[in-house]
């Protein structure tokens, strides 16, 4: 059986005001894959995620999810279809409790029906959140906030999760926990596209990767092949 393509981004250009942030970017994510999006600061990774989520509109090109065009939908409609973004910097609601942050994850109608089931999944993945459920989100540690952000994303009952810089500002041991959670999320049938600056880590965790530079995709492929690419070796591993 051929693998089903969940997300198909074709030839998009995205502008911020007069500044072009993405140039003719194309990308595909297949069912139950883990795909990494790698690149330096300002290379357009977050812009690409925000374009997929509908926060910014592409000027050119198309975005399809599950065979359906989504590039002119509002962000909340895109979440309802099953694409959930966990943004950079976690962005939990600081003055709401952990419980209320999670409840808001299930705001869309489809997710409300599966609220109890998703609560169980989140608390299985992150037992610490159950312990902290009545605390305000701002009182959590950085790692716990990242788990809350992931949990909130999972509450929207996603088919595809877009994860932006999960390991930013976290201690190495916490980063390991976050990536362990990522693999467990995939085991539950959720496809993942994640953004990461750490190339070595990305190539370890992902099935395939896209490498971006200055708003363009410059390389892509299976991680095994990419690890052998001379350009990557030179640019990122210093070999």
């Amino acid at each position: 059986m051929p693998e089903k393509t969940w997300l198909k981004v074709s030839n998009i250009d995205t502008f911020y005001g007069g500044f072009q942030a993405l140039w003719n970017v194309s990308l595909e994510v297949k069912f139950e894959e883990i795909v990494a999006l790698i690149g330096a600061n300002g290379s357009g990774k977050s812009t690409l995620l925000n374009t997929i989520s509908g926060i910014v509109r592409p000027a050119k090109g198309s975005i399809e999810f599950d065979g359906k065009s989504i590039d002119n939908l509002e962000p909340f409609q895109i979440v309802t279809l099953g694409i959930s973004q966990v943004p950079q910097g976690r962005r939990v609601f600081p003055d709401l409790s952990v419980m209320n942050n999670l409840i808001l994850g299930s705001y869309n109608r489809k997710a409300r029906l599966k609220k109890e089931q998703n609560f169980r999944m989140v608390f299985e993945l992150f037992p610490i959140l159950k312990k902290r459920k009545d605390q305000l989100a701002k009182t959590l540690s950085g790692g716990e906030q990242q788990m809350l952000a992931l949990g909130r994303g999972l509450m929207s009952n996603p088919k595809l999760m877009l994860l932006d810089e999960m390991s930013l500002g976290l201690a190495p041991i916490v980063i390991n926990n976050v990536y362990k959670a990522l693999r467990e999320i995939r085991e539950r049938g959720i496809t993942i596209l994640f953004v990461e600056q750490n190339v070595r880590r990305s190539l370890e965790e992902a099935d395939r990767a896209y490498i971006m530079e200055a708003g363009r995709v410059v390389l892509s492929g299976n991680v095994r092949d990419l690890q052998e690419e001379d350009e990557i070796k030179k640019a990122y591993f210093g070999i």
Partner: protein
Amino acid sequence: MLLETLADLSNPLIMGILLGGLYALIALGLSLVFGVMKLINVAHGDLVLFGSYFAYAAMTILGIDPILSLVIGMPLLCVMGFAIQRYLMSRAFGKSMEAPLLIAFGISLMLQNFQQIIWTPMSKGLTTSYALISFSAGGIYFPLAYMLDFIAALFVMLALRTFLEKSYLGKAISAATQDRGAAQLVGINTGRVYAFAFAIAMATAAIAGVFLGLTFPFTPQSGISFLIIAFGVVIIGGLGSMLGTFIGGIVLGVAQSLGGYFFGSTAQMLVVYIIVLVVLGIRPQGIFGR
């Protein structure tokens, strides 16, 4: 001597607390709209007055009690608020800071003139049989209208808090207040949530309009003076906090009342604005602001 002074003080103190209830009632909607949308709704005072005039019309034309007329007045202002946000403000949001402000200013001018054409510039009041009743206990006077103001403010504040904390929509409003971008990413239709927040703020404006009319006479120009008072309340209490707004109202009411007691009625608002300035200097986010 000291005891006598204290006994003398209790009357203005009580009056200040009760009057503060009215101020809080007027400010709650302003605080909610600013907290959620970061919009300074300069039309708030005129929308409150629209509520007063609506109750006046219901009373004089149909003979309906002003408080009872809220059954129609609240939904009417709700719909107006929803439409203002959904079809006027939302187009201006994100374009510039001043565009929504100008729209609010335009609404303010239109309402003032509309009310002037229909009701003349003469002062009106919601003169009901109970508006002038007063109780006295231990040498202290409790005017019924002021007591109703306070009870209404307490009720509206608690209702808003419960709504924001318990309901799905209320939580979504809080979320959009704290981080609009993240709210969009969790699937909240922020445009719609904003319109509901404005609608709810206008429901409180309808209530504030009725109790204002029961307490004070009003003219089409009164909106601005109550808007300024509401600003003071919100600055003292902290924007977006319902409890803070309630307490801010009481602080302002007491300041005005005691200011009048000690320095005469000409200086009472001066005392109020000095307190506002002091709060701005020491704690610009307000006593309960984040």
